[in-house]
């Protein structure tokens, strides 16, 4: 049981627990908090994987912006405890079966596909920050620009959506 493995299991457990509690919690704020836990844990995993930049961005953007937005909205709408209706029949037992099937399939597929790269495990941390920036601004510059446009559009759209129509 090497240290990294230990850290991994701790963080992984944290993440899974967070995800489960996201499901079990009745109040959206609690769900949000559990999700934040998951994200922080994932950030730790990224660090473990040597992707510091991604980890930082994960926390700053996901933890510091997106989830804050969620919490903010929950507070703004003063969302109460989730009311437990079950009108949809699909989302009952059949849904459960389907989810299990999906998860199983995904896991199987991924595992099978990772068998082929067992040998090629890279050891050692690559200096990811500069490398990532190089890739973003060299090879992926057009996607980058596109995403920036996407963000712009999204911001405008959100503004238009959320503003009360002047009457």
């Amino acid at each position: 049981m090497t240290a990294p493995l230990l850290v991994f299991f701790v963080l992984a457990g944290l993440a899974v627990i967070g995800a489960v509690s996201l499901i079990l919690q009745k109040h959206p704020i609690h769900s949000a908090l559990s999700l934040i836990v998951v994200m922080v844990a994932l950030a730790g995993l990224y660090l473990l994987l040597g992707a510091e930049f991604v980890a930082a961005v994960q926390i700053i953007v996901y933890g510091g912006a997106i989830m804050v937005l969620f919490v903010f909205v929950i507070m703004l709408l003063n969302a109460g405890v989730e009311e437990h209706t079950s009108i949809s029949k699909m989302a009952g037992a059949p849904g459960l079966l389907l989810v299990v099937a999906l998860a199983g399939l995904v896991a199987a597929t991924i595992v099978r596909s990772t068998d082929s790269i067992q040998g090629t495990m890279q050891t050692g941390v690559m200096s990811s920050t500069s490398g990532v920036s190089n890739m973003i601004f060299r090879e992926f510059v057009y996607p980058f620009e596109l995403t920036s446009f996407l963000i712009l559009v999204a911001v405008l759209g959100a503004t238009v959506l959320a503003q009360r129509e002047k009457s």
Partner: protein
Amino acid sequence: MVPTNYYVILSAILFGLGVFAFIFKRNIITIFMSIELMLNAVNLAFVAFSQALGKLDGQVFVLFVIVVAAAEAAVGLGIIILIARNRQTLNVERVNLLKL
């Protein structure tokens, strides 16, 4: 060193949980969060693979995913605010105007 499989299986689990939440939660905001959870699971897989293959593409892609998630959150929350304003509820089962 942690085998890639572990990361990948973890991401699969998280993804499954996300799907589960996506279906079985009734609060729009929570459903949104479950979508974010799925995205995170995918990101984990990306980073794991990129590290395993010694390529950075995966990390770059994760960044893009995060950006898209941010955009999605902005718009989606705007929509949610609208829904809450107009229908006084956050329960998706009460928002069923799509019905014939």
